[in-house]
């Protein structure tokens, strides 16, 4: 299923070079892209997704026909029910949605029976669960995540990380994050973006999602934070 998806080449914004001859291959599993603000993390993600971002890639971008997308905001539509929100992309794509499958996905993310409710009756964590169910509904081989958990409180964030990781285990995932602990916790591959280049970071050899309380994780997180601050 997983092909040679990714971004290869140089990315420019206006006349300035944002990323210089990078070679980002998205293998199966979680790829976490880490970097300081303004380094171009989100630009890479939007370029791969084919979304407008004001940057141009002179090189090659390859993506599957169908991709999953989850942003920092939940992007729930306030006038649609929770269930309709889960089925929104099917409706947008002109496919006939399967309500039974949408209900089942809501149950998978721990929200059985809330399908008829409006998004504004849900908490922030619940809303992001609905967004995850909507992403899963796409059944895409490549899923792109743009800091999807950064607005959540730490406990909810950890729960959502575990849930998303379990649900997206078999797919290729590219997650942009500014949190070194999050990247090291979930990433099969962790990539650091700085000085217009990508550098691979070797995460500790622990079962994923990695235990933040493990001494090796604490050490790796600290070391990665130091590199981020220097970047």
């Amino acid at each position, binding site marked *: 299923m997983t092909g040679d998806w990714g971004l290869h080449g140089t990315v420019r914004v206006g006349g300035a070079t944002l990323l210089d001859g990078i070679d980002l291959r998205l293998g199966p599993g979680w790829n976490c892209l880490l970097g300081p603000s303004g380094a171009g993390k989100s630009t890479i993600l939007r370029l791969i*997704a*084919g*979304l*407008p971002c004001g940057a141009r890639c002179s090189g090659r971008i390859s993506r599957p026909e169908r*991709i*999953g*997308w989850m*942003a920092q*905001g939940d*992007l729930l*539509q*306030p*006038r*649609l029910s929770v269930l309709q929100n889960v089925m*929104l*992309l*099917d*409706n*947008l*794509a*002109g496919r006939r949605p399967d309500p039974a499958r949408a209900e089942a996905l809501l149950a998978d993310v721990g929200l059985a029976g809330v399908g008829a409710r409006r998004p504004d009756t849900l908490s922030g964590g619940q809303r992001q669960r609905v967004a995850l169910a909507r992403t899963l509904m*796409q059944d895409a081989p490549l899923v792109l995540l743009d800091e999807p958990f950064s607005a959540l409180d730490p406990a909810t964030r950890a729960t959502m990380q575990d849930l998303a990781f379990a649900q997206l285990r078999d797919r290729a995932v590219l997650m942009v994050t500014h949190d070194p602990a999050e990247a090291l916790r979930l990433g099969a591959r962790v990539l650091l973006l700085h000085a217009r280049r990508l550098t691979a970071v070797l995460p500790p050899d622990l079962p994923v999602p990695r235990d933040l309380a493990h001494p090796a994780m604490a050490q790796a997180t600290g070391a990665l934070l130091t590199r981020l601050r220097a970047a």
Partner: protein
Amino acid sequence: MHRLLAALGGVALWQGVVQMQLLPPFVLPSPWAVLRALGHNGALLADHGAVTLAEVLAGLVLGVILGLISASAMALSPALRAVGGPVLAASQALPVFVLAPVLTIWFGYGPAPKVAMTVLLVFFPVASGVLDGLMATPQGALDLARIADAGRGRSFIWLRWPHALPHLGAALRISVTYAPTGAVIGEWVGASKGLGYLMLMANARSKIDLMFAALVLIVALTLALRMITDRILRRFAI
């Protein structure tokens, strides 16, 4: 409760001015005289009021439909938007009332020019308000449309239109307060029926209390329209 107090305060002030004889009765009749005129001329006011109400409703319905069609067409077609957008923006600065005599020349002395005046007053706020709403869809929602590879039509139905509903609500609330003004101005320019005509007729015959009664009815009509619109919009959570 506050509104009732404000209304009572207004009437009390009105009565006070009359009581102190600050203005002669042929300039400002007392609230009581106006109330009496309302009672004595009930049938007459109802007849003319029905004519004005019909003009207002016809103008509202036509204006809203035309406004919605124009805004949707411009939202869906960049070419139409390039031409129509600046026209709509400029129309905000246009004093549409000055067209009233022209409309009478074009459409005669029947209800048509009054309806046309109302349509003009309703069309522009609805068209420009709804177009603004349709073009102000959040980027995140449009990202979802792009991810799903949705065309303009489906993006319109599922994303642009729902996000434009609050703009439509605001435009409708403004429009229903403009609409009676449009019909009355149309009647002032040339008519044989309607509350605007009745006001001019009462004025010419120095029946100042009847003129005020017609005025009170126009205000009541406008407030009632506004209240009904508000109720309906709120039912749909707009």
